[in-house]
């Protein structure tokens, strides 16, 4: 093949490719009756609208105590669900990890529970639990708890098998019994990782709790939903700002804790 033919073919390929892209775009614009000029002009307008409406107004600021009370509810639900999940997750992980399982038949159920709880999304758990607990704080708490439990069990199984195997072997060789092996070697070895994952879970759960709150009618999510549907955009925006501030604050705190313990 001559170099000229090679480059001619290359050019043809490029032209065809861009022609096809243009064709698809134009076809889509025709089909959806999208007015390109109007659409582009609307972007600055929508920003302007957002800026004018989402700046918290005086009424929004007067609602701040209510918002903070609800935020506290959400943050506490996230912390409580994560912490309780960490305790149970560690227990399940000890039953499930190859290094520490008391019997090999316990390993599979522990891993199965972890997998099921983790792979069902928190919103789906909330919907399922709505049937049992209705629109209450429990629904949100359990939805967050289940997902956190699955997640923490999974990561702790890996942590135990990674950092625990060698000291466990050494303690077995000294004649230590099962309880002593767990409390004197597995837990000290894994605790920093457990705390680190717990902090991560709290951060994640505060975000999830906001969304779950919309479904279950509790916490800060409920408040956002309420204000937004009442056209109190200023108040809804204040809810968003407060939530973002809380998430950033907690992330900073947990990063500091992590730096100290790891």
């Amino acid at each position: 093949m001559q170099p000229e033919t090679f480059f001619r073919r290359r050019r043809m390929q490029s032209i065809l490719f861009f022609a096809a892209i243009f064709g698809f775009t134009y076809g889509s614009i025709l089909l959806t009756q999208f007015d390109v000029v109007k659409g582009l002009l609307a972007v600055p307008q929508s920003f302007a609208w957002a800026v004018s409406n989402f700046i918290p107004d005086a009424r929004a600021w007067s609602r701040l105590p209510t918002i903070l009370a609800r935020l506290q509810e959400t943050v506490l639900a996230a912390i409580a669900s994560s912490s309780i999940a960490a305790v149970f997750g560690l227990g399940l992980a000890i039953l499930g990890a190859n290094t520490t399982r008391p019997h090999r038949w316990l390993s599979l159920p522990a891993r199965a529970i972890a997998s099921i709880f983790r792979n069902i999304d928190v919103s789906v758990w909330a919907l399922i639990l709505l049937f049992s607990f209705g629109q209450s704080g429990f629904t949100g708490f359990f939805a967050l708890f289940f997902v956190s439990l699955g997640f923490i069990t999974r990561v702790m199984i890996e942590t135990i098998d990674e950092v625990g195997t060698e000291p466990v072997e050494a303690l077995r060789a000294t004649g230590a019994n099962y309880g002593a092996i767990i409390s004197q070697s597995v837990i000290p070895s894994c605790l920093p990782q457990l705390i680190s994952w717990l902090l991560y879970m709290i951060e994640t759960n505060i975000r999830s709790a906001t969304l779950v709150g919309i479904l279950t009618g509790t916490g800060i999510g409920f408040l956002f939903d309420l204000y937004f549907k009442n056209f109190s955009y200023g108040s809804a925006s204040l809810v968003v700002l407060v939530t973002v501030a809380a998430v950033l604050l907690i992330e900073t705190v947990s990063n500091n804790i992590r730096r100290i313990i790891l």
Partner: protein
Amino acid sequence: MPLLEADAVTKRYGTETLALNEITFAVQPGEFVAIIGPSGAGKSTLLRCINRLIDITSGDIRFDGVSVPKLRGQALRHHRTQIGMIFQHYNLVNRLSVLENVLHGRLGYKNTIQGILGLYSEQEKREAVRILEMLGLEEQMYKRCDQLSGGQKQRVGIARALVQQPRMLLCDEPIASLDPSSAKIIMDTLREINRTLGITVLVNLHQVDVALHYAERIIGINRGKILYDGEPQALSNAQIYQIYGSEAGELILDLKERYAA
């Protein structure tokens, strides 16, 4: 009476892999025995069968006249307290202090509650400190183990084994991860323990030169079978070839000429 007797010990993994094939030997109290052989020969498996970290498939192991394979529960734990173990990777809890790691050697003597809470007596703590001083670790006592060098970690491992007041030490490749000078300190320490405390030492090595230099008796293993059992002086070049296979043999013989003298 021998302290340890292995009688046709066989260990099979699955149906195919034969890790130990009818291993028979006896160790007298106070002996310093080196088990040599290439990687995968079955040395580690053999040591772990002695303190029952691994269950054997057939045969019998007797420690101080007691048959080990049948031990259960409390009796098995008591058996393990009499045997200290030292590992290639030290197997310490890195986040705990040196002293706490050494005291782990006492856990075999504890009941469930004492073990879970880590309750040690004043006497046990003093004994741990004395052993650490003996091994030259008094300045590291309160440091976390992840701050120590490899040689220091291995000495902590030895201290943890000694605090058990064992009758025998099983050392699984104790110097394989160490630099030559730390390795020498560890091997000298083991010989010192053997001579002054009268503790029987069974050490897995893959360095023939070290084995020849320190051991009173050599057991050569390849593919789960004992190929040599006797004095280091009587170990011939041909036998080393046999234990290590022909390719590795030349390198090892070269070493033997340099160090054996």
